[in-house]
């Protein structure tokens, strides 16, 4: 059973529908106790890092997620869920969950004719093999919508990269935590396959 964390941050329905299409049992919850005891967690989201963190704190989900992480529960962060697992975000100068040391940084693309947010399909390149990314082929594209990107302190935590006016980390992880900046649930077959890989992943 996959537990989808509900903290008023958007794309829960999309994630649930994608898991259902894959035949993977899931539930959506805002209850910290359920998150603590979850077998497997997806932590999705769209929106503002500051707003996301304040809802997590209000609902006591921040400590529940930390405990689940420390217990070794496999966790997949998506989009905002990939950003707020880091220590800090430039968006609203927000202190985040700090499951993985690092910072979320705003795109600086001034004068290069690029638009922020980075919105649309872009190629993701695996930089370090990981079971969740096992199926990726060179040039596979995923759907992105974001203005900030994750930058872990340790480059060994980066598993895939993307190019938008410069290379940025698109998938990061440490131990039982894996997180992707793109919307796997809206990235067609290649995204569904990533969700399935996560559902089958046993962190060592």
């Amino acid at each position, binding site marked *: 059973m996959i537990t989808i964390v509900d903290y008023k941050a*958007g*794309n829960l*329905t*999309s994630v649930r*529908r*994608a898991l*259902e*299409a*894959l*035949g993977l049992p899931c539930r959506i919850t805002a209850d910290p106790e359920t998150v603590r005891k979850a077998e497997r967690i997806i932590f999705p989201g*769209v*929106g*503002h890092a500051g707003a996301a963190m304040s809802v997590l704190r209000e609902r006591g989900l921040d400590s529940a997620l930390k405990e689940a992480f420390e217990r070794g529960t496999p966790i997949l962060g998506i989009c905002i869920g990939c950003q707020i697992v880091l220590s800090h975000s430039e968006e609203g100068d927000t202190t985040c969950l700090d499951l993985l040391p690092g910072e979320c940084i705003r795109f600086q693309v001034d004068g290069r004719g690029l*638009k922020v*947010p*980075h*919105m*649309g*399909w*872009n190629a993701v390149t695996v930089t370090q093999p990981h079971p969740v990314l096992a*199926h990726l*082929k060179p*040039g*596979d*594209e995923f*759907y992105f*919508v974001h203005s900030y990107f994750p930058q872990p302190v340790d480059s060994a935590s980066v598993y895939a990269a993307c*190019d*938008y006016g410069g290379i940025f980390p698109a998938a990061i992880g440490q131990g039982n935590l894996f997180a992707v900046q793109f*919307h796997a*649930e*809206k*990235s*067609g*077959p*290649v*995204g*569904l*396959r990533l969700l399935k890989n996560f559902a089958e992943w046993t962190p060592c």
Partner: protein
Amino acid sequence: MLSKRIIACLDVRGGKLAKSVRFVDTKDIGDPVEQARKYYLQGLDELVFYDITASNEKRDIMIDVVGRVAAQVFIPFSVGGGLRTVEDCSRVLLAGAEKVNVNSAAVGNPRLIAEAACAFGAQAVVLSMDVRQTDASPQVPSGYEIIINGGRTPTGLDAVQWACRGEELGAGELVVNSIDADGTRQGYEIRLTRMIAESVGIPVIASGGGGKPEHLYDVLTEGKADAALVASMLHYGEYTVGGIKDYLVGRGIKVRMPKDESWTDRS
């Protein structure tokens, strides 16, 4: 770099797929959910559904269509037509759409754009504009005017100025639909698209007039569009998404080419 997107537009009336020529003569041509699924499997990048149902009582049919699409199609899609309030927008987003398309209602009440952007984020709000060429005047300096109510009512608003205003109000993307080109299949309105793309900092989706792959090439290069909307080219089975993309790749355009076509989902 981002890929240029191919977006299929599906006009839905009373739950059925319809297609118009110059905004009139609409006829029913199939099931929108089945079509959406077919294009998704062909490698489409995004979908737009316009609800052209005349009566308000039938709006619930559209919500049902949105829910069924969301359960079978795993690419972004937006829904437009008859969205007048933030609550209307909220219903389609909760049913599973990523984005809402606002058009006539935003002309009458521009605050709708700002309120929707504030409630759901700019990335979820697409400002769709129907545009007709007219004589340039002090009121309409670009020579392109915004028309509302499905092509019936001229507004006296300049299209380029309205596009800029929409961006300021918080729209995350613009659909620029040329009424003159709509349904003609003679090519997109390049000049209009380019004029708007050069005036705003948000993605511009060209709409109206796509009849063959080279029309997409033209509007994605000369027209400076980030994406092109297609309808009849696909609906009548003359082209496939893959066929259009092969053509564009052959001419050096970066588009997404899904590689693992055999692996979709269990359904």
